[in-house]
């Protein structure tokens, strides 16, 4: 009897202790998070709101501060993040997510399904004006929400505090991938007020492995480890992300030992590669990207497909790749990069062919006395000039006159979104490793502007081809469908397809375990560590 009482008491006490421990954010010994990583961004993130951020600088910070339901790990595998597990109905129209419990926002507030519902619903809230509504458009009730007919998206429901159900209006295979995007990061619904007047986003917080402890615009953003993180704890104590728009400055800082990482460009790649001290620490990442010259397909002179095709044929990509990238890039014959479903090998009919190109231009009405002349908008960074000046020179030899219009990155984004730029030099970095991400956002007519379709391309046949392809459940057949669309879009040449470039990074000898997956910019720096 005594023994039973004693052991029961023991168990009860243990149970109580355990529940006490479980119901507060468990603080690990702070000294297990060690070291400071000094990184940098090439421009001040203009908007840390996941619903509105559209570039890699913003995503870089968001990925460390917020979590989504799912994420892609270093091996490019889709794994659960805030979602512990999920099930998909056989007809592919409903996904039910079971959230992890004991997850806390940086302010101590616990994560529940209401936060998930709030965050996802917000993307489709017309008052928010997100350019990424297409991410969640396939959810039932999305259209009504966008039109303002309902105050909530019908298809997103909280079944209980830790279970969320998402119903789609039609089966949509890439949906889980879309949920990994920064747009779907989870925000604290308890701060809805600050979020709606945007003051929240000066120093936003989420459930992520790092918190923003300091932010000085145009100077730096300081991230400290969230020791109460729900997953594997971050190994770093702090990340300093400085804002350094000048490559030369970043290079000097790296050489002085003030930065732990440097993105290499054609200007400095060879110098570091030929130095044995540095060469071993260079990582070439075949990134998910495509570089292109976009046209405003809706206005002259680029509303004429002959002009667009001609320009593709007048650019000798291989020559530039060889000279500038020294083989670290692959000529693009479509928008989808190698290694991704839908990548299409072989010719797309737009290879370098100056005679044909000149003939097409002549047909379109241009000649020596009436040369094709246009403004090319670009970033004011020297690395952009490297390419645009070469293109300008090359096209001049074929009688095309380009005027370069450099501007700062956010000004460029705005000009392009508004359709002010007849031509622009830009790139598209994939949000997830699926060909659909290189087709739908950039070529579907519903995404004009900052949604992704900067070229204002519109083709009804291609629109429906894209819409049909995402309904295919079988991965291989879907890939074939993407490939066909890729080819078809190339026929219309909405861009000058340039190349898919590897990104190269140099790390200092302090750094270990820096994961350079192709989606490195979205890395949440969990495994990263530095020697003291």
């Amino acid at each position: 009897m005594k023994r039973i009482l004693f052991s029961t008491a023991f168990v009860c006490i243990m149970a109580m202790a355990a529940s006490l421990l479980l119901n507060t954010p468990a603080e690990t010994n702070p000294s297990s998070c060690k070291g400071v990583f000094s990184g940098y961004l090439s421009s001040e993130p203009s908007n840390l709101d996941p619903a509105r951020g559209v570039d890699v600088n913003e995503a870089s910070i968001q990925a460390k501060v917020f979590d989504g339901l799912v994420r892609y790990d270093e091996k490019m595998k889709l794994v659960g993040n805030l979602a512990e597990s999920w099930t998909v109905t056989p007809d592919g129209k409903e996904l039910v997510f079971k959230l992890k419990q004991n997850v806390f926002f940086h302010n101590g507030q616990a994560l529940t399904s209401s936060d998930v519902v709030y965050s996802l619903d917000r993307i489709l809230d017309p008052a928010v004006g997100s350019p990424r509504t297409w991410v969640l458009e396939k959810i039932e009730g999305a259209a009504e929400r966008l039109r303002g007919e309902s105050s909530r998206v019908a298809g997103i429901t909280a079944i209980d505090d830790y279970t969320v159900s998402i119903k789609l209006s039609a089966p949509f295979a890439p949906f889980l991938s879309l949920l990994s995007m920064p747009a779907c990061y989870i925000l604290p619904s308890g701060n809805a007020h600050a979020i709606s007047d945007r003051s929240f986003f000066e120093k936003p917080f989420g459930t992520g492995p790092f918190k923003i402890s300091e932010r000085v615009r145009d100077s730096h953003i300081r991230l400290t480890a969230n020791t109460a993180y729900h997953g594997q704890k971050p190994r770093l104590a702090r990340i300093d992300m400085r804002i350094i728009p000048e490559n030369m400055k970043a290079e000097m800082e790296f050489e002085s030992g003030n930065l732990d990482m440097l993105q290499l460009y054609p200007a400095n790649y060879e110098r570091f590669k030929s130095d044995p001290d540095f060469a071993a620490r260079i990582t070439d990442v075949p990134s998910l990207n495509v570089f292109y010259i976009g046209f405003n397909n809706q206005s002259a002179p680029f509303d004429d497909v002959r002009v667009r095709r001609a320009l593709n044929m007048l650019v000798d990509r291989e020559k530039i790749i060889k000279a500038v990238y020294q083989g670290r890039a692959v000529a693009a014959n479509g928008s989808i990069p190698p290694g991704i479903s839908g990548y299409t090998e072989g010719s797309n009919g737009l290879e370098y062919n100056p005679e044909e190109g000149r003939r097409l231009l002549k047909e379109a009405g241009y000649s020596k006395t009436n040369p094709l002349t246009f403004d090319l908008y670009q970033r004011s960074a020297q690395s952009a000039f490297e390419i645009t000046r070469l293109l300008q020179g090359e096209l001049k030899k074929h009688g095309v006159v380009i005027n370069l219009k450099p501007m700062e990155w956010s000004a460029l984004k705005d000009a392009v979104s508004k359709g002010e730029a007849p031509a622009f030099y830009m790139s598209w970095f994939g949000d997830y490793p699926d060909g659909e991400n290189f087709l739908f956002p950039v070529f579907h007519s519903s995404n004009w502007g900052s949604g992704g379709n900067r070229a204002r391309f519109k083709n009804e046949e291609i629109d429906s081809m894209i819409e049909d392809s995402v309904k295919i459940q079988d991965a291989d057949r879907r890939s074939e469908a993407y490939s066909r669309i890729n080819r078809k879009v190339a026929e219309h040449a909405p861009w000058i397809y340039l190349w898919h470039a590897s990104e190269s990074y140099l790390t200092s000898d302090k750094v270990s375990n820096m994961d350079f997956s192709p989606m490195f910019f979205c890395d949440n720096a969990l495994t990263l560590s530095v020697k003291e």
Partner: protein
Amino acid sequence: MLEFTLRRLAATIPVLLGILLIAFIVLYLIPGDPAQTVAGPRADAETLARIAEEMGLNQPLHQRFFSYLKRTFSGDLGSSAVSGKPVLESVVEKLPFTIKLAAIAMSFSIILGILAGIISAITQGRWLDRVCTFFSVAGISIPVFLSGLVFLYVFAVRLKWFPSSGFAAENSLMPFILPAFTLGIRSAAFLARIVRSSMIEVLNQDFIRTARAKGLSPMRILFRHGLVNALIPVITVIGLDLSSYLNGSVIVETIFDLPGIGRFAMDAILQRDYPVIQGIVLLGALVFILVNLLVDLLYAWINPKIRDEMLGKLAR
């Protein structure tokens, strides 16, 4: 002295108004909708309408100017089109860095400049003078961005004597030394020439010859009589040179990564943040006018002869 002060102040006021007028007009000359220019390209329709109303775009021009004057004098220099932060607040935050930079640069320039000027004046015509003169010409001829880049590379990156940026340098002076030196060289060169000619002029004057005849030691002559008189024009020059510090700080703060006003201006220019640019240009002009006013008053107070001369000029 009082009359002089009053007249001098009276001359300042129209200049002040004129500057405000120019700053006011520039905003309207920028192509595009002025409200959009102030609100920034990322503002939504609501903010745009609010700002258009604030600016009173439907009111007649002179009324808009008056409300602009009122706003400016109450300290409202507008808000950044990029971050929404009030311009004055950002300026106050960043001013200490630029002031530190300018102060150290000025110290460098005064010490180097006066020293070089004196040496030149004493050894007038000989090789030392020629060398100093050449270096002072070179000092004002080499573009600040070039010398800045070279110094940064040699002393900060290669030799590592100085930090290569102003980041993480909370209260130390180290990150300011190199940029201040770059800025200061220019002023030093300028000063050296002025000091040299001023000293030569003074040293040739009668009272110096008298002192020498009296048998006073050369050093004493130099310092007590020569230097003090020669330095008077230097004060004016320093005042006039102040503008060059603001210009120089734009380039130097960008190269050396110091979060001061110059860098703030540069970032605003790149981001087309017009309210900030307008605010900084205005402040720069105001500071210049103020400093010159003070210098003139100081100058007149020290030397009554000059005061009368200047008074005569003002009265005309």
